[in-house]
């Protein structure tokens, strides 16, 4: 049986990073404040209050429209989407329905089959976020909800894609590329909690489509899609059919769950919002000057810094990461470009991911950026070898994560007792005189040879891998504080001497 084709389309909701809400002057900077402290008659839905559209939200949305190659419509309009829910202050959401801001664009991603792939954008529209619900109580004593309207009225942009993605991986790439694009446009901050929410439409070719709602993280998208695809495929394999339905993603359990049928009977009774006037903003498009976007920056990184394609993709895939890279390189453009490329795109990203940290966590304190630059300087000047550098980096990240006071790389080196071992003074003389007994490197080599007779034997038998094993042991003993090149040379010499 041929592999069933997976079809995925996404509806991505992002909070636009304006100062005030979409229809009132309340501040959008609510996350660290108490409930219901950023509300006014408009966003609380008090009787008689009226919405007034925030111009910047439209400008931001139009930047996105232009960057995603969409056509801004001659006339767009806001409508009311009517439904009851305690977090919805007016019992309708002001959104755009039959006259969205923009239609018909695309975003290029790296496709599963290699090369660039175009994901078509159906439409872009602007709408308001509802408030936030907290579920309280229990089955015995009665359940109820608590509502905080601080989030009500935060501007959202909804970007709807065509069903052009063929795997969860492509969906993730689309989302990452979209996030990067929005951040490059300075209209969105992915670091803000809950600033992105995704609904996904998933089907196996020839079967019904399922909508999965409530995906609220980048990682969640791939997980939710994988779960849903597996579920649908196994249904089909057992000869059952997939129902057309709406499901919710339960992040904690990594599963999708059918929404109760009652909720599906939505009839939103859309009609134009009579308290707002239509938009005629097509002519603004011309005046929008787009900044350098991820693809252009990627090409520049390759051309200017000699980054590999993969590294350039990684580095430019996140605005803060790209900025961090360029900050680091700027400190010593000739010396650090090559080093920074690998250290940031591979080592740093790996260590951050391991700790569930983002580049923002590191780079938001300027000292850490300086520290990272110093660290790379030490590595470059061979005052610190790769393995030592990684240890120091791990310490730096742990310090940030645990909120401990900042230490410079040199301070960390000192604290850990990581001193570059002076291999040269313990080295052999060209004449092949015996090694000094007191030098730690010399001692370590002697110890390893004594402790690993089998590996030494294998080496003499010409077994590949034996030498690397011995080097590994040697690195461990010297805690990475010796120049790996020198170690290599000294061990080779020692083994050869022995053999003679």
């Amino acid at each position, binding site marked *: 049986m041929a592999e069933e084709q997976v079809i995925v389309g996404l509806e991505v909701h992002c909070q636009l990073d304006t100062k005030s809400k979409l229809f009132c002057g309340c501040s959008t900077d609510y996350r660290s404040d108490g409930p219901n402290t950023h509300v006014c008659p408009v966003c609380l839905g008090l009787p008689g209050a009226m919405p007034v559209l925030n111009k910047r939200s439209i400008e931001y949305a139009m930047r996105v429209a232009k960057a995603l190659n969409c056509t801004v419509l001659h006339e767009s309009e806001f409508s009311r989407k009517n439904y009851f829910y305690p977090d919805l202050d007016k019992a309708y959401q002001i959104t755009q329905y039959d006259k969205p801001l923009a239609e018909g664009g695309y975003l290029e991603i790296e496709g599963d089959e290699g090369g660039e792939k175009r994901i078509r954008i159906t439409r872009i529209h602007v709408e308001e976020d509802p408030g936030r619900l907290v579920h309280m109580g229990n089955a015995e004593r009665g359940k109820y909800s*608590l509502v905080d309207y601080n989030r009500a009225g935060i501007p959202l942009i909804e970007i709807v894609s065509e069903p052009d993605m063929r795997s969860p991986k492509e969906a993730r790439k689309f989302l990452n590329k979209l996030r990067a694009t929005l951040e490059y446009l300075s209209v969105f901050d992915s670091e803000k909690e809950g600033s992105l929410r995704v609904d996904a439409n998933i089907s196996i070719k020839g079967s019904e489509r399922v909508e999965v709602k409530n995906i609220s993280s980048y990682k969640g998208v791939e997980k939710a899609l994988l779960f849903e695809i597996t579920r649908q495929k196994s249904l089909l394999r057992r000869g059952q059919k997939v129902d057309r339905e709406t499901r919710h993603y339960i992040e904690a359990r990594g599963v999708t769950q059918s929404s109760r049928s009652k909720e599906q009977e939505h009839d939103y009774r859309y009609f134009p919002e009579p308290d707002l006037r239509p938009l005629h903003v097509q002519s603004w498009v011309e005046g929008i000057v787009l900044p350098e976007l991820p693809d252009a920056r990627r090409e520049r990184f390759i051309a200017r810094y000699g980054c590999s394609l993969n590294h350039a993709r990684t580095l430019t895939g996140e605005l803060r990461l790209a900025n961090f890279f360029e900050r680091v390189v700027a400190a010593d453009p000739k010396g650090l470009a090559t080093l920074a490329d690998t250290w940031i795109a591979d080592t740093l990203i790996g260590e951050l991911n391991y700790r569930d940290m983002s580049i923002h966590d590191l780079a938001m304190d300027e000292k850490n950026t300086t520290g990272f630059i110093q660290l790379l300087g030490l590595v470059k000047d061979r005052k610190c070898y790769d393995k030592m550098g990684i240890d120091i980096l791990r310490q730096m990240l742990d310090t940030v994560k645990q909120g401990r006071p900042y230490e410079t790389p040199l301070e960390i080196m000192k604290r850990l007792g990581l001193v570059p071992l002076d291999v040269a003074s313990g080295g052999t003389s060209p004449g092949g005189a015996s090694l000094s007994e007191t030098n730690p490197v010399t001692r370590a080599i002697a110890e390893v040879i004594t402790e690993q007779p089998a590996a030494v034997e294998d080496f003499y038998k010409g077994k590949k891998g034996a030498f690397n094993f011995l080097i590994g042991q040697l690195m461990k003993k010297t805690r990475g504080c010796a120049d790996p090149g020198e170690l290599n040379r000294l061990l080779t010499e020692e083994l050869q001497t022995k053999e003679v």
Partner: protein
Amino acid sequence: MATEQEVRHIAELADVGINPEELGTFTHQFNAILDYFDVLDRVSGDTAVTRDLYNVMRDDIVKPSLPQKDVLANAPAQEDGFIKAPRVM
């Protein structure tokens, strides 16, 4: 022509409820009004609504919000600064 069942469904959709004893009269009056609305079938033309006001917007400037006590003042039930609402789960 709306049936009693439809009228009940509409009452449900609108969350206004309807008593069994008022359903008959309600449906009768509802239909009389809907019949009257049928005159709209005779409307011809397809003009969109004309407006002379577009792009009414404000600048992105933060204005003071209400004090929390004013926000909660009219709420019948509250808890720790939140407004209490029925359960949704």
